[in-house]
């Protein structure tokens, strides 16, 4: 293999699995260290820079970081990253004075943002401090998008939303609630310099089975129903409720039903558990509330008696799977009718753009979804940008935030008359973490503690109203243990081949056998002859330059490295060093600052 190019920012970024997996690339180990030092406000600000809504995401993020967490490979459970994010948000001091503000003089550019969800709010958050005049149009009475309409307040209290959305509105962003945009053409005619569409994927999928029309009064579309509950239009539901579908919306529907008077709630799944779309922790939380999850039941018909819904008929399914767990054959082996008073359909949602005229130069594809550039988020019409669920279909809040950041860069460039596709590259800064003899600027010891479990409000107390937050947040003891579980993957192992004497000290001390000195070879071959076979192909091999004494190479399998620094402590020549990496991921303000620097240089 060729020597690894560690100057490429992506190499060390990828080693920080959580940050790499996070769509907004939140520097997780960095803020966990700040929490460990009790610097909650600083931890919050580090978070906010990349994900804008730490308090919200600390409760309801989809957490792509956690399945990626190295700790989950080293032992079984990842670091409770999401919970720690909430610790920062819960315990921070006043941050208003630390937030960017709009400049006294604006730059005269007007931006319209459609939908007050996380994508639009992020665009406004990035652009308002640069002097842009941002107006957010929201059809509902309150801002937040799905964060307010679809996520129940027992998971995400409204005060948290108000606070974090407030920080953005306080930058001088104009918010027009109850203002549905019915025509993009009309909006464009108002002379905005750019339009950002962040209207989400607001259309819940329908299930057209026999009886659907007759029983309409007791059949609800999940996301619309949750919205009606959030805005107090719906205050009760029948005793026996069936939820169709097992995504995260289904989990919110079943738990909300319990708080509106239902006492027998079943979630009906067509497939076995391993095919569920809901996050494992959301499934667990629902099951803790005695929601029954019924597998292998495929909806067949709604059962009507005297014009009223009394039950639903399901086909009982059987599946054959191959060795990889993929379904190879499906059979119907029976039929069953389950009595119920209400049915909630939570089988997915899609984009809908009836309000975008098709002659505006915005191209739609064969699924009637606008064609959007994956880097610039620009549609085929200059100056019209998409982000969040309205860009590439339903994802989650953290993806919407990242879309917002990227779209903000494009909008800024568009308004300045620059090429939107010419963007600042990512960067990397490495700084040694060595403080003295075997002393490091981070806690390098390995704490074998297990993941801390979130404490929940007692079952008896939580169903009294809709707003009792179920999760209590980590207490100081839980926090103190959990922060030490983080392996500090951003403190990188940096190798200088010319200094290596090939004494084997690092190889002997490595607790996870991730180092080897060996003759070089092709990757597939190398992977087999390391100290421990490198069988996780998702993780890179680091290969050094040729070593001075024998011409062999140092190979490191990035898979299980604990970042404990023992290689560097054992290295007599400091050929191994632990260095704190900072990945530079440009936002709109970085682009603007770079422009200013260049202007000043000229």
């Amino acid at each position: 293999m060729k020597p690894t190019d560690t100057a490429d920012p992506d190499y060390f970024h990828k080693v920080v699995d959580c940050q790499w997996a996070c769509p907004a690339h939140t520097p997780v180990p960095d803020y966990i260290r700040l929490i460990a030092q009790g610097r909650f406000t600083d931890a919050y600000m580090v978070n906010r820079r990349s994900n804008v809504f730490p308090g919200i995401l600390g409760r309801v993020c989809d957490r792509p970081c956690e399945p990626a967490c190295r700790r989950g490979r080293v032992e079984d459970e990842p670091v409770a990253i999401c919970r720690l994010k909430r610790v920062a948000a819960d315990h921070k001091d006043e941050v208003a004075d630390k937030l960017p503000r709009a400049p006294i003089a604006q730059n005269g550019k007007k931006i319209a943002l459609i939908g007050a969800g996380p994508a639009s709010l992020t665009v406004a958050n990035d652009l308002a401090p640069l002097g842009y005049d941002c107006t957010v149009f929201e059809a509902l009475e309150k801002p937040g998008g799905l964060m307010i309409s679809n996520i129940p307040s027992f998971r995400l209290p409204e005060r948290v939303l108000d606070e974090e959305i407030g920080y953005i509105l306080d930058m001088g962003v104009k918010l027009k609630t109850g203002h549905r945009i019915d025509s993009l053409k009309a909006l464009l005619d108002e002379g905005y310099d750019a339009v950002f569409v962040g209207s989400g994927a607001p259309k819940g999928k329908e299930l057209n089975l026999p009886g659907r029309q007759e029983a309409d009064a007791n059949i609800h579309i999940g996301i619309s129903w949750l919205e009606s509950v959030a805005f107090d239009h719906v205050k009760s539901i029948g005793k026996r409720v069936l939820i169709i579908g097992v995504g995260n919306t289904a989990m919110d529907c079943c738990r909300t039903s319990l708080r509106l008077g239902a006492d027998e709630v079943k979630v009906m799944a067509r497939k076995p558990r391993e095919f569920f779309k809901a996050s494992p922790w959301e499934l667990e939380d629902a099951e803790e509330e005695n929601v029954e999850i019924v597998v292998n039941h495929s909806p067949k018909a709604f059962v009507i008696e005297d014009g009223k819904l009394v039950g639903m008929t399901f086909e009982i399914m059987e599946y054959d799977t191959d060795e990889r767990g993929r379904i190879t054959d499906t059979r119907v082996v029976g039929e069953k009718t389950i009595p119920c008073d209400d049915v909630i359909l939570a089988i997915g949602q899609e984009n809908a753009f009836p309000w975008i005229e098709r002659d505006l130069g915005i191209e739609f594809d064969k699924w009637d979804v606008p064609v959007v550039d994956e880097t610039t988020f620009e549609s085929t019409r200059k100056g019209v940008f998409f982000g969040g669920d309205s860009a590439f279909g339903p994802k989650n809040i953290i993806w919407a935030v990242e879309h917002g950041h990227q779209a903000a860069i494009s909008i800024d460039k568009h308004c300045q008359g620059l090429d939107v596709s010419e963007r600042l590259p990512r960067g990397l800064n490495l700084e040694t973490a060595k403080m003295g003899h075997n002393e490091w600027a981070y806690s390098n010891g390995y704490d074998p503690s297990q993941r801390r479990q979130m404490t929940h409000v007692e079952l008896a107390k939580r169903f009294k109203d809709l707003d009792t937050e179920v999760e209590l947040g980590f207490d100081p003891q839980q926090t103190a243990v959990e922060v030490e579980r983080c392996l500090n993957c951003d403190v990188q192992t940096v190798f200088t081949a010319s200094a290596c004497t090939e004494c084997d000290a690092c190889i002997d001390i490595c607790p996870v056998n991730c180092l080897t000195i060996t003759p070089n070879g092709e990757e597939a071959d190398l992977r087999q002859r390391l100290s421990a076979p490198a069988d996780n192909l998702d993780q890179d091999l680091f290969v050094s330059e040729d070593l001075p004494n024998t011409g062999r190479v140092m190979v490191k399998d990035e898979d299980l490295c604990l970042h404990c620094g023992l290689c560097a402590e054992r290295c007599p020549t400091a050929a191994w060093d632990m260095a704190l990496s900072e990945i530079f991921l440009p936002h709109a303000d970085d682009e603007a600052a770079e422009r200013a620097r260049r202007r000043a240089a000229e």
Partner: protein
Amino acid sequence: MTSIVKPRIDKHLRRNQLGLTVRDYEGVMSTLCAGCGHDSVTAAFVQAFHEMNLEPHRAAKVSGIGCSSKTTAYFLGQSSGINSVHGRMPSVATGAAAVNPDLYYIGVSGDGDSLSIGIGQFAHAIRRNLNMLYCIENNGVYGLTKGQFSASADIGTKAKYGEVNEQPPIDPVLLALSLGATFVARGFSGDKKQLVPLMKAALAHKGFALIDIVSPCVTFNDHKGSTKSYAHTYEYYHPVIHADFVPEEAEITAEYQDGGAITVPMHHGGNVTLRKLGRDYDPRDRDQAFHLLRTREGSEVLTGLLYIDETKPDMGDMNRLPDEPLNVMDYSKLCPGSAKLAEVMKGYS
């Protein structure tokens, strides 16, 4: 030494026939200097025992005084050991082996402990063919007393602060050969691919097995001008013959059959196969071993299993000692009583 103990994470590690990972064969945290060759030798012991599927308590570790002698604490934490008096480890090993021949005796010594203060003990342990693996972690200096030349320092080698050694070195391999040792090898701490199989073969050998291991002192003897530095050893490193221990149940594969590999059946079962590396050399021939060592070119560090003789009786056989350890021997057999004593005494009257 390191600031923290090596974390114990072993769910990914290969388990041997006993269901143990290499981590089960480790000892306490090393307090040696970072980069010390001795720590690599320690790691080689751990690996050899693991690969041989020996229970970690089946060893008895004995040592004298010196950096090398500290290392017995760093491997096989579940076995017993004695860190004895300077240069007197062979006596302790002799006593222990006499009363309990059931354990694998591992002596770890240094060039000071074996070639200066303990050279007499070392010589006599060889002479009586004590059944043990005797490793000399050889770095050419007294590291524990700040880097004076030891008896194995080569002529012309430079000390850290500039003195040049003029006294001829004692080569433990030549010494052992001339004293009639039955297993004589040289290794290098930086090459576990050679060292681990050597250790396994030595453990399978019945009798005195010497492995002289070039194990650089990173603090006092790893500079330019030293003939026992990592750089110097790598430059002049010359494996002559590669020994592999092949356990009884495993087949001797074709890899060994070509190129005229030599197979030596071992007393404790299994075979040692010897693969020639470049030179025509038979390690069963003592004269050839002498010749090879006396005619080495320049600074060549000749390594490998240089001499092996499986036919000689060990100390236990020569002295007709019981195979059964005294600690499990029936008391009536161990102490036959006053009537038997009287009978024995009658023989002298």
